[in-house]
């Protein structure tokens, strides 16, 4: 077995924060071109025998750093998008190893509720959840309660994430939760979006997530 130094694994983390998918990407200062990015590094450590689970832990730690920097205003949305994309690229390399070792990923169904066509926030959440190792089933925007419940049942999802930008469409979230409960579907409901408040989420029996990072934290903490 090839020895992999701790340093190489640390570099995965560093490159996720920098949002470098592969050797062609630049870092914040415009440098690093030609040096291995997340794709190459993940490939390297996998070949060296490091367990996929361990790599995912490092990636998660890196995304926590990104989340903190976003919260403090040091990072902006494009920084976050670059990191999430780098993670997706790394996960693609990891995927075949995951299935062969039998480590399955939790499923999460995500949707913008009926009547609402806004998807910027929902897409960021989906991207970060994928990055955190979840199997994300994105139903898109303007999705009926029936469709959401049906998919949750079919996919045996562990979580469902609902998004709404408008106060008027936010109320649809309550309908989705009621329908899920009425059909006895045991799934955790995450609610977010500009219109949604912690109070409203609690009222309908959902878990409030103020942003994409909190959604990932909630899902992972379970």
């Amino acid at each position, binding site marked *: 077995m090839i020895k992999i130094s701790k340093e190489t694994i640390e570099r995965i983390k560093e490159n996720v924060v920098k949002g470098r998918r592969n050797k062609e990407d630049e870092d914040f200062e415009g440098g690093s071109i030609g040096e291995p990015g997340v794709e190459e590094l993940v490939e390297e450590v996998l070949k060296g025998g490091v367990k996929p689970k361990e790599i995912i832990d490092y990636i998660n730690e890196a995304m926590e750093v990104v989340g903190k920097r976003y919260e403090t205003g040091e990072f902006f949305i494009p920084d976050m998008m670059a990191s999430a994309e780098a993670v997706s690229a790394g996960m693609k390399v990891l995927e075949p190893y995951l299935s062969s070792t039998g480590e399955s990923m939790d499923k999460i169904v995500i949707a913008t509720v009926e009547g609402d066509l806004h998807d*910027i926030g929902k897409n960021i959440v989906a991207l970060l959840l994928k990055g955190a190792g979840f199997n994300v089933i994105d139903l898109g925007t303007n999705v009926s309660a029936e469709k959401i419940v049906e998919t949750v049942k079919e996919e045996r999802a562990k979580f469902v994430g609902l998004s709404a930008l408008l106060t008027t469409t936010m109320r649809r979230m309550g309908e989705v939760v009621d329908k899920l409960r009425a059909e006895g579907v045991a799934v955790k409901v995450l609610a977010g979006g500009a219109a949604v408040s912690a109070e409203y989420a609690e009222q309908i029996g959902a878990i409030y997530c103020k942003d994409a990072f909190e959604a990932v934290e909630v899902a992972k903490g379970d």
Partner: protein
Amino acid sequence: MILIGDRINSRIGEVKRAIKRRDDAYIHNLAKRQAKKCDYLDLFAEEKSDMLWLIEIVDAVDADAELCIDTTDVDILESALSACRGEVMINSISGEEKRLSEFLQLIKDYNASCIALCMDERGIPATAEERAKVCKKVLERCVEKGIEDVYFDPLVMPISINEKNGMTTLKTLEILKSMSVKTTSGLTNISYGLPCPSNVEVAFLALAFRYSDSMILNPLDEAIIEMIRACEAVIGRDRFCRGYLRAYRKV
């Protein structure tokens, strides 16, 4: 260039709070300051009672700017239209069939102008060509109904989410112009999620200007207003640079 001021919008935290506590002085002031710089004042509130209250306050402002009712709810629109006194613009119709037929009737009845979004029930098309297709459909419906005063909105999406978003909008504007329709764009969307938003908005404004008949923007941002004056002069819509010079002499 028809300018539509976008500050009276309940999605802006401070405005939302002012609406909630029925702070008429705050809204009156915001309307008055914007009205000095633009032709229409966009009013957005999600609840009907809030929208009607806004109309009452803004209609009472002694200024030349007209109202632009920003809603997707036919019930709110109908009440708003019957409450407005002057000329009205409606923001917005789209390719969404149900809203299109209901709104067009009201637009006709009240002889209003309107903004048409290049999207339908499936959401916002990814490409300029598909957006133009939606525009074509809406245009046909407007012509059928005898409605002419329509501004097509190519849909501005943040470049922070996808760096191609700016070009998709610019390309859509170019196609819309080649179809000889009037256009308008929401400027603040382009800069969402980025620092120094005004810089990004000014850049988009300059690039979009020649394909634009109107802009929905923050008229209280002096950099944007200055850029509009400069652009008018550069593309030859400002005879003897009179508008540009007038602004210069005032300073």
